[in-house]
């Protein structure tokens, strides 16, 4: 059984839930083994991160190098290739960093790559059995990967529930000396923070969220009306931003904001994973969509199959009545 590693991303020394999810994924490959955490970085931040990985890990490999202070996938990849034993299985969170790192890493390690994995169904001979999604979540697929020379597996955030009652993490092992010189043909310059905009959707407890189903810019007003009456804010999914109907600051998703509302109204949103990834804390999710097969209905608490453009005005009327607000 090859050794299982989990690459842990940390920001300023802080490790988030994804570490525990990677442990859960590793257990699906081999329940008997505690995966090895591997972290890159530099200085005290790396030290803090190493001690914060959480329970369930065996060893914790620390790879420190000044060049790795900012997680630059190009450099991290070089470091990992030198440090990891051949034939290892490496688990990585499928986020913007995992997308950047893993495909190239799998080539350099001469291992198979499985992207955005939803579920792991164990090993059969030399094959690892996995589940992925395709077509924006409309179908799932069973896959088999040949792991005879190792594997790099990108794990979908939130797909693997962290387990409880795991033994505390093991000792930190310093692997920094194996790194050698890193060649930086891609260099990090700076991070430009997105403009705050007038509304901070991360601070609202009720969000009226719109997707492609809103169909035109003019209809955004319907959602804004509802939000005003409810005391909520309007957020949206990516296609609405791409079409320039709402600013980027309103986007919920893996490339937008992460929100933790109490109630989330998903209007005309299909439920593509990248959007759902931005919703944390399990809010009460009400979905309205014309398509009864929209993936959102699988994750919503309550669903209504209706034309958004017909339903919203009705909802607006009722809401106004409820609040005693005069019609516009």
């Amino acid at each position: 059984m090859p050794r299982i590693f989990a690459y842990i991303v940390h920001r300023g020394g802080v490790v988030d839930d994804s570490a525990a999810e990677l442990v859960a994924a590793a257990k699906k490959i081999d329940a008997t083994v505690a995966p090895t955490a591997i972290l890159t970085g530099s200085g005290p931040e790396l030290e803090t991160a190493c001690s914060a990985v959480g329970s369930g890990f065996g060893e914790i490999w620390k790879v420190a190098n000044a060049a790795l202070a900012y997680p630059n996938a190009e450099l991290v990849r070089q470091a990992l290739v030198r440090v990891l034993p051949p034939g290892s299985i490496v688990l990585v969170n499928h986020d913007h960093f995992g997308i950047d790192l893993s495909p190239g890493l799998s080539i350099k390690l001469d291992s198979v790559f499985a992207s955005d994995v939803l579920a792991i169904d164990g090993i059969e001979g030399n094959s690892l059995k996995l589940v992925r999604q395709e077509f924006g979540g409309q179908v799932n697929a069973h896959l088999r990967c040949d792991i005879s020379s190792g594997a790099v597996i990108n794990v979908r955030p939130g797909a693997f529930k962290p387990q409880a009652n795991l033994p505390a993490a093991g000792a930190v092992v310093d692997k920094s000396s194996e790194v050698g010189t890193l060649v930086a043909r891609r260099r990090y310059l700076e991070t430009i923070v997105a403009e705050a905009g007038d509304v901070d959707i991360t601070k609202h407890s009720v969000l009226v969220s719109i997707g492609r189903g809103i169909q035109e810019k003019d209809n955004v007003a319907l959602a804004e009306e509802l939000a005003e009456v409810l005391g909520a804010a309007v957020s949206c999914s990516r296609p609405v931003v791409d079409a320039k109907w709402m600013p980027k600051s309103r986007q919920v998703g893996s490339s937008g904001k992460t929100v933790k509302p109490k109630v989330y109204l998903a209007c005309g949103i299909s439920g593509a994973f990248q959007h759902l990834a931005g919703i944390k804390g399990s809010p009460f999710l009400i979905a309205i969509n014309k398509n009864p097969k929209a993936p959102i209905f699988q994750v919503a608490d309550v669903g209504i199959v209706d034309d958004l453009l017909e339903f919203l005005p009705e909802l607006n009327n009722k809401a106004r009545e409820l609040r005693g607000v005069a019609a516009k």
Partner: protein
Amino acid sequence: MPLLRAQRDPRFDQPFVRLGGVFKFWLGQWKHPRYKFAGTLHILIFAGFILLALRAFTVLIVGVSQNFVMPGLSGRTGEIYDLVTDYAATVVFLCMVVAAGRRLIFKPARYALPAKYGKGHTADAVFLLGLIALLMVADSLFAASRSAGHLQQGQPAEALAALSLPWMLQIAIGSMPLATLRELNVGAYLVHEIAFYFLLCYRPFGIQFHVETSLFSIYFSKLERGTLKPVRWGVSDEHLDQVKSFGVKTFEDFTWKHMLDFYSCADCGRCADNCPANTVGRPLAPRFLTTKARDYVFQHYPVSGKANNGKPLIGNVYSEDEIWSCTTCGACEEECPLLVEYIDKIVDLRRGMIDDGNVPQSLQKPLKALESRGNPYGKIEKKRGDWAKTPEFLQDNKVKVLDGKNGADTLYFVDSITSYDDRMQSIGRATARILTRLGKNFGILGAAERDSGHEVRRFGEEMLFTALRDHNTEAIKASGVQRIVTADPHAFNALKHDYKDVPPVEHISQVLAREARAGNLRFNAADNWLENRDRVYAYHDPCYLGRHNQVYDDPRDVLDAIPGLHRVEMKRSRDRSFCCGGGGLMLFYEPKEEQRMGVVRVRMAAEAGANVIVTACPFCMVNVEDAIKVAGMEGKMSVIDLAEVVDQHMVCEGGPAQTEKLEAATVGG
């Protein structure tokens, strides 16, 4: 002259029809009374000019040969002519004063020029009015002084018409010494000639050029309504691939007639005043398309100096949004007294933009869907006929699909929105029920039907239109039908004007009107079927049924045939109907506007005292329904299609008409 470099434009056909047009629109000033006050002024001025033409030349020649008399105007005829023209000069003079006062004091809004387009034209206009007034005074003074002079000398004097300007002037100057009179006479003559010739030279540079060009712009005007000019005259469809560049990108790409239009426009603003895009604050006003082009041509084709040309129009003279904003409703062309054309120009400009790949993102998706699926929604072809297969509908109706196994003599051409849109499908079902009850042997093309391509063509995607048209034409021919019926005015217009070699097509309102006249249509009284007796209906003329195809009375006759149906007319109706916002691809375009056209129209209906709008076009339905919501008038206004109204009230054998539960159609429901 740029017209020499322009594209060709065959306008020399049908001379008698064209002459007829000249009589009606030029001589008869047919369009002018649409604006009563300005129209009356202009008719008077125009009549005056025509009458005075001969007199003006007489005066000119008299300066050279004193006793010259225009051939044909000697003796009694001449005297009558002189009297008439005395009054004509007076009237023209008075009109000039009134017109100048109007420009300076009342400033009608449609003359205004937005700051970004430069200084206003008022000074220029008043200058011209002043010059003409001067011309009239000079002419009158000439006649007055001559007559006074002769009187003083005891010679026979020309009689001056009582109370006319020359008559009044004669009284004023009659007692002046002869020498002064002579000086006045010569002076008046000179002023007259100088003013006359100055105007002749000055007019081409401004809005008065229409005095000369109007005859030509009207003679060469477009004869057919509802059609579009081909990409290039003289190039047939099969050879279009060889055309290097589609559409109008630089000024020289316009045809000579379009360039003539730019010179002819009188800047009266009637087009822009009626343009729905302009009314709702979109960047388009037809008048400015012309004035900007005129400014461009003056700049680039100066009288003296080299022509410098070839700059792209979009981005320099016109903005993209300006050109995409047009709904092709035709209100501008309907108003223009000079018959200036706009739709062809805008379509040509769009063709140019499409050729350059310059298409708003919002339109790219539906265009792509039209290409791959034959409808702008991207829905699957085989579901196109599914509107006729709902379980409720199938219980009592069966719609034939003309797929080779089934034939019929009438084709019901449904088109995309009625086929796929949940709400519009009820119009399809209502129409099918009506046709069945009328005993028509009809069928639909079903999955073989593609979008008629009407808006595709008007948005400039000529090749995609050709592909859709050819596919549909083949399917129609294969079905063997003898005639076509549709409830969609855009499809109606396309099949009638854009398609060739297809059977004759009618709109369902025309079919119904004919049946009503023949007594085959029986209706239940309106009150029995409606919950609310106070329903007041207003019929909204769809642009492509009304203005472009002049079907105004048939839908009204059908509605009036329903006993007890209370109908009112909106102020803007028939050929002055106000566009709902546009159909086809216009539903996808995201314009910059201050409000929606539909909202303006819904308010017009409310103003007329109506609470139900009846339309005969699915796109009007979409826009008006939306507008009712946006305007917050739900519960106070509703909208219904003509076919649905007929369906609800039509009596059929064996019992009450089956209706469909139309949530949107019932007031307060």
